[in-house]
């Protein structure tokens, strides 16, 4: 390259040499999205709080649980609560921060295919969910060993692999609900409030409705995603009918809104 002034006429005639740019691979997008989940102050604290709350929850079981209650199920349950709150928040913020913090202006100019960016975020979210749960189970196992030794009772391993995978799936469902709210609302405060509405307020309303209207009592398990999620946490999703219920609530609360939300996300303006 020369630094000499090119007269306008010749410059106009010379087309810039197009470099053979290759398209951005999905693995790279996923790595970038993983990094973006934890390189902000809030993301960093989310990550720290997963570890800290897991330790606190485990410690609380060791300190407060009566000797006969020192078993792996109780450790898993205690760990499940902070996980079921923080993991969906991570899922929500991974999507909404692009709009609420406006970083989407850069993200979507560097990668114009918004569908692929959102797909990479979904994969990254899933990875975070599974790894976090693995860490939580490990901390819980450690707590179980320490707790039973302190209490002088036998160490009880009463969580089967099937139970464990249902708990993981239950948390993935929670993250998927958060992710969906993020895609649909594209606004951090609204999506977080929305998550608490559909996870805390809605179940109460549906349960009340099932009590006062008999026809709804039979319908509730098919449309109440909390009902099916709690079944997963309790490792109680066994029959084909119960899996069908999970499929039904997932379609209603995750698949359908996600399809509509993605359409709007891909066609809306990024400002």
């Amino acid at each position, binding site marked *: 390259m020369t630094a000499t002034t090119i007269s306008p006429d010749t410059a*106009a005639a010379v087309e810039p040499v197009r470099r053979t740019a290759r398209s951005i691979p999905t693995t790279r997008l996923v790595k970038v999205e993983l990094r973006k989940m934890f390189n902000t102050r809030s993301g960093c604290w989310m990550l720290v709080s997963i570890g800290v709350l897991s330790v606190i929850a485990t410690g609380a079981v060791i300190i407060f649980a009566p000797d006969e209650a020192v078993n792996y199920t109780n450790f898993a349950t205690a760990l499940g609560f902070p996980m079921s709150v923080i993991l969906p928040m991570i899922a929500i913020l991974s999507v909404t921060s692009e709009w609420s913090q406006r970083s989407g202006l850069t993200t979507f100019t560097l990668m114009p295919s918004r569908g692929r960016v959102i797909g990479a975020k979904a994969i990254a979210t899933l990875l975070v969910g599974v790894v976090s749960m693995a860490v939580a189970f490990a901390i819980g196992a450690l707590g179980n060993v320490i707790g039973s030794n302190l209490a002088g009772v036998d160490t009880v391993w009463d969580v089967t692999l099937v139970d464990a995978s249902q708990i993981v799936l239950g948390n993935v469902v929670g993250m998927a609900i958060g992710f969906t709210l993020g895609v649909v609302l594209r606004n951090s405060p609204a999506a977080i409030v929305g998550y608490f509405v559909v996870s805390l307020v809605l179940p109460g309303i549906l349960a009340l409705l099932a009590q006062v209207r008999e026809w709804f009592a039979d319908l509730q398990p098919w449309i109440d995603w909390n009902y099916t999620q709690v079944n997963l946490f309790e490792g109680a999703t066994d029959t084909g009918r119960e899996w069908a219920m999970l499929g039904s609530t997932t379609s209603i609360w995750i698949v359908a809104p996600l399809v509509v939300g993605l359409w709007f996300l891909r066609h809306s303006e990024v400002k």
Partner: protein
Amino acid sequence: MITVDSLTRKYAGFTAVDDVSFTARPGRVTGFLGPNGAGKSTTMRVMVGLTAPTSGTATIDGVRYADLPNPGLEVGVLLDASAQHAGRTGREILTVAVDTMGLPRTRVDEMLELVSLTPTEAKRRVRNYSLGMRQRLGIATALLGDPKVLILDEPANGLDPAGIRWMRDLLRGYANQGGTVLLSSHLLHEIEVIADDLVVIGNGRIVASGTKEQLLAAAGTLARAASPRDLAHALEQAGIPSNLAGDGSVRTDADPAHVGSVALAAGIALTELRSAEGAGLEDMFLSLTADTQREGVAA
């Protein structure tokens, strides 16, 4: 080369960009001017695929931006320096961009140095950055991929005088090496100094476009005499319409030679006679966009 062809973007109730066509050529700095809300930013967002056009196209070397495989390597974009995650450090923002493009991390340090952000500043979170620092970071992001096309919305906004000079030299250098630079700015003096070509937009429509020389030549002649009124009268006698400007000068569309000969014939001693280039861009801008100005400034 950036080609915008019959671009229209309508919102419910109004048309933000109305049948806009222009090209920004390689080796040239193209200035994109217009009052607030004229449609500059919307046009630029359509160019980079953030906003879908209602009709018309915008292409980079013949390709839609969204179809570029790795756009960061071909087009440097700065639309809004404040549009960054406030909780990320400057260095992280560049690292994320460099990773997305698949470039080596060493590029981050090179760019930080280029835009004069110190290592300490780069470690701070963007929420603590001044506008000028955000602007430098935004420029660094745009330049990371060593692109051949730059699309910059108000890049000089918030920069200190040294920063503005640096930016001017940088963009000039880019264009001289055959790059295409499109920049919008309200700083008319900046545009006048740096731009080779101008595109003026008002109410979503192109009101003028061409080389700076062409457009400023059309701004006419400025003349001064002891009695501007007599000069204006003499010009009117000669059939040349003119305006008495508030600063005591007489402005007309006629060329300086013509004005000079009229003054000589009328026996009026001119104290100044030149093409109205000095104040030209601002006058041109205000007269071209007079219908669309919020303040209703008269031409």
